C-alpha cells in the first residue's frame, strides 16, 4: 500500500520529462530582452512617485510554466525593435493592467470553473479588481501543484497548447501552436487522442523539429492524415494539386488546407462551405461561379441541387481541367443532373438537352473518341465542342432572358474554332437541343416523318411482293 502511495506521490511530483530539455531553451527574442531585464537595478517609475523593479530573474523564468513563451507572447506591444514608453498613475493601476495580459489566454469561462477564481470574478463585477500576480507571481508562475496527473492525454497537451504557443521557423516566421479545446471537441476527431495523429509525441516525449518555413510544417503535418485516410491520400496523389506540389509549388493545397487541422468538421453535403474553401485560392473563379446560374442559386436561394466545385472537379483526385481527357468528360458531368428527370422536373428543365447533344454529330463523335481512348492514347485533331464550350464553364447563365444573346455569340465563336468559314447564320444548323417540331424546324420535322411513313410502307410493299411471288410459284407447281 505504502509502495503504491509512494509511486503516486513520485508521479505527482515528477515534472514531465521534456521539461528538462525545454528548461535550457528560451527563444532568441527572450535572450535579447533578458540582456537588459535580466540585470538587477532597472526600475519603472510611476506618476505618483511609486516604482517597480523591471528585473526578471532568468533562472526563475526558465523554471516557470511560461518558459516556452517568448516575451512578446505576453508583452505584445514590445519587440526587439520597439520599446514604447507608457505612463501609469501608480503601481496599483500597473498591476491591474498586467492582469489583462494573463486573461487574454486564461479566459473568464475557464476561471469560473474554479471556485477560488469564480469568487474573484464576482468581486470584480462589484468593482474590486484583482491582480493575478498577487498569487501567482509575474514571470515565475509555477504549476499550481508542482505537476499534475491529467485525466487524459488531451488534457495534458492542452495544458500548454490551449494557450498561444509560438513556434518559430528557420525563416523567422512564428506560428501559434494553439488548439482550441472547444473546437476540437466539436470536430469529427473529438474521440481521438493527440498522439493518434501526432505519433512520436507523448507526455514523455516532445520532439524538437526544425522546419524551414511555416508552409513546410503545414505540409509535413498534413502527411499525418494518411495513416487513417489512405484512400483519400491515394486519390489526391493523382490530383493536379499533388502534381503542382511535387513540382515544388508549396502553396498547392494539402489535406489540412481544405479540411482544417484540429477543427475538421464533417463536410458532407455542405456545398456552400466547399465552394468557400476552394475560393481561398481560386478567388476569381469563385466570383464567376457565384454570379452564375448555379452559384446564384446556391448562395442566394440556398438551393442545394446545384453543383458546387467538387461535383465537377471531384473532391480529392482533382484533375487538370486543361487536358482533353477532362474536357471529354464534361457532358457526363452535366448529365449527372441534367439527365436526371427528378431534379430537372423541379425547375421545368428538359432532360432532352443531354439526349439531343449525345445523339447528334458532336455527341456521337465524342462518345466514339472516348471508346478509342480506352485502347490507346488518342488525340483528336480538333477538340469536339461540349456543353461548356457554348454555355460557359463557371459563368453558366440562364438560357432564357438577356443572357441568351451572350450564349448565341459564344456559340458562333465556338463553331468557328473548328468550322473556320462559319457565317453568322451557321449556329442555325444546330437545333438548340430541341427535337424538330413543325414550329421550330418544319423542314427537318417533315422529312423525318416522311421517312417514318415511307420506309415501313416501302418495306411492307417489298415483302408483300416477295411473298406473292413465292406463293404464285408454289401454286403454279
Amino acid at each position: 500500500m505504502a509502495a503504491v502511495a509512494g509511486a503516486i506521490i513520485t508521479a505527482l511530483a515528477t515534472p514531465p520529462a521534456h521539461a528538462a530539455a525545454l528548461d535550457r531553451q528560451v527563444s532568441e527574442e527572450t535572450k535579447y530582452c533578458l540582456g537588459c531585464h535580466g540585470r538587477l537595478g532597472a526600475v519603472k517609475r510611476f506618476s505618483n512617485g511609486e516604482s517597480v523593479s523591471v528585473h526578471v530573474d532568468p533562472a526563475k523564468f526558465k523554471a516557470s510554466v511560461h518558459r516556452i513563451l517568448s516575451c512578446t507572447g505576453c508583452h505584445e506591444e514590445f519587440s526587439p525593435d520597439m520599446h514604447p514608453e507608457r505612463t501609469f498613475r501608480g503601481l496599483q493601476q500597473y498591476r491591474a493592467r498586467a492582469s489583462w495580459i494573463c486573461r487574454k489566454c486564461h479566459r473568464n469561462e475557464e476561471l469560473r470553473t474554479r471556485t477560488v477564481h469564480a469568487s474573484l470574478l464576482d468581486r470584480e463585477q462589484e468593482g474590486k479588481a484583482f491582480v493575478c500576480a498577487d498569487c501567482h507571481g509575474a514571470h515565475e508562475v509555477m504549476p499550481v501543484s508542482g505537476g499534475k496527473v491529467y485525466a487524459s492525454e488531451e488534457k495534458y497537451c492542452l495544458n500548454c497548447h490551449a494557450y498561444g504557443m509560438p513556434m518559430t521557423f528557420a525563416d523567422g516566421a512564428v506560428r501559434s501552436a494553439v488548439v482550441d479545446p472547444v473546437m476540437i471537441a466539436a470536430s469529427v476527431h473529438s474521440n481521438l487522442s493527440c498522439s493518434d495523429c501526432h505519433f512520436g509525441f507523448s507526455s514523455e516525449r516532445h520532439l524538437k523539429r526544425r522546419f524551414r518555413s511555416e508552409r513546410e510544417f503545414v505540409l509535413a503535418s498534413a502527411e499525418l492524415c494518411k495513416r487513417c485516410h489512405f484512400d483519400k491520400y491515394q486519390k489526391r496523389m493523382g490530383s493536379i494539386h499533388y502534381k503542382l506540389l511535387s513540382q515544388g509549388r508549396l502553396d498547392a493545397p494539402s489535406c489540412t488546407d481544405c479540411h482544417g487541422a484540429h477543427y475538421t468538421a464533417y463536410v458532407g453535403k455542405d456545398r456552400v462551405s466547399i465552394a468557400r474553401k476552394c475560393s481561398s485560392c481560386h478567388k476569381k473563379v469563385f466570383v464567376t461561379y457565384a454570379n452564375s446560374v448555379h452559384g446564384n442559386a446556391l448562395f442566394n436561394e440556398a438551393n442545394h441541387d446545384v453543383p458546387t466545385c467538387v461535383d465537377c472537379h471531384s473532391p480529392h483526385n482533382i484533375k487538370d481541367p486543361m487536358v482533353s481527357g477532362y474536357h471529354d468528360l464534361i457532358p457526363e458531368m452535366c448529365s449527372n443532373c441534367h439527365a436526371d428527370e427528378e431534379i430537372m422536373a423541379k425547375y421545368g428543365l428538359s432532360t432532352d438537352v443531354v439526349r439531343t447533344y449525345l445523339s447528334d454529330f458532336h455527341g456521337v463523335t465524342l462518345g466514339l473518341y472516348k471508346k478509342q481512348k480506352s485502347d490507346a492514347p488518342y488525340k483528336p485533331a480538333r477538340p469536339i465542342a461540349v456543353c461548356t464550350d457554348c454555355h460557359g464553364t463557371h459563368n453558366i447563365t440562364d438560357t432564357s432572358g438577356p443572357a441568351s444573346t451572350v450564349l448565341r455569340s459564344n456559340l458562333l465563336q465556338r463553331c468557328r474554332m473548328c468550322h473556320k468559314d462559319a457565317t453568322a447564320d451557321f449556329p442555325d444548323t444546330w437545333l438548340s437541343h430541341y427535337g424538330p417540331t413543325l414550329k421550330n424546324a418544319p423542314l427537318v420535322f417533315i422529312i423525318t416523318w416522311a421517312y417514318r411513313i415511307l420506309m415501313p410502307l416501302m418495306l411492307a410493299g417489298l415483302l408483300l411482293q416477295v411473298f406473292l411471288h413465292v406463293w404464285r410459284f408454289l401454286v403454279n407447281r
Partner: protein
Amino acid sequence: MIYDTADNTKSSARTNRIGRPSRIRRFSAYRITEHWCVVGLFLVLVVTGLSQRFYYLEVSQWTILLIGGIDATRLVHRFAGVLFSLLVLEHLVGVAFGVMFLRTQPSMVITKKDFLDVRHNIRYYIGLESRPSACSRYDYKEKFVYWLVATGGIIMVMTGFALWFPAQAVRFLPGQFIPAAKVMHSNEGMLIFLLLAVWHIYDSIFSPDVFPLDTSMFSGYISRERMVREHPLELAELEGVSSEEITGGWGDEPPAETQDDAPPGS
C-alpha cells in the same frame, strides 16, 4: 442502264438445236463494270455509314474501332462517297450522251404500261390472270429499284456534301437544311439499303426463278428461256418477230417453257 449497248450478234454463236440462240447478251461489259463499282462502293458506304447511324450498337462500335476510329471511318466514308459521286456523274453524263448522240432507247423510262403491268401482275398473283405481264427490257420492278437507287444516290451525294461542308452549304442555304440533310442522308441511306437488301438480293439470289444465282451480271448473258418468261417484248424485238410469237398469245396457251419445242418463227 437506261440505254443498252449489248451486242447481241455475238450471242448467235451459241444456238439451240432449232437454230435460235440458247442465251442472249443482256449486259455489256461497261454495264457490268458499272454495276460492280456501285456494289463495291455501296458496301463500303453502307458499312461505314450505317455504323455511324447506329453508333450505339456494339457491332457498329466494333466496326468503327476496327477501321481505326470515327475519324478514319468518316474519311473512308467520304472517300467512297466522292468515288460514288463520280460514278453518279459518269452515269448521268453517259445517259445524256447516249440519248443525245447515239440515239439509244432510254429503256428505264417509266411508261403507262408499267402501271398496267403492276395491276396485271397483282391480278396474276391472286389468280385472276393466268400469265404474268409481258415486259420489255426492264420490268416495273427493275425500274422501281433503278429509280429509287438513282434518285436516292443523287440525294445522298447532295446531302452528303452538305454534311461534309456545312459552313459552305449555309452560305446559300438556310441553317435548318443541315439537320434536314442529316435526317435525309441517314434515312435515304437506310431506305436504299433495305430496298437492295430485301428486294434486289431476293430477286437475284433467292427468287425461285433464278435460284441459286442470277448470273447475268457476271457473264452478261441470260438464258433465252428466261428472256421468254421475263422480257418477251424485248426478245420479240431482238428476233424481229411479233410479241405474240414469243409469248404464244399470252392467253390460255401453254407456258413459255414448252414453246422452245415449237417450230421456229419466221
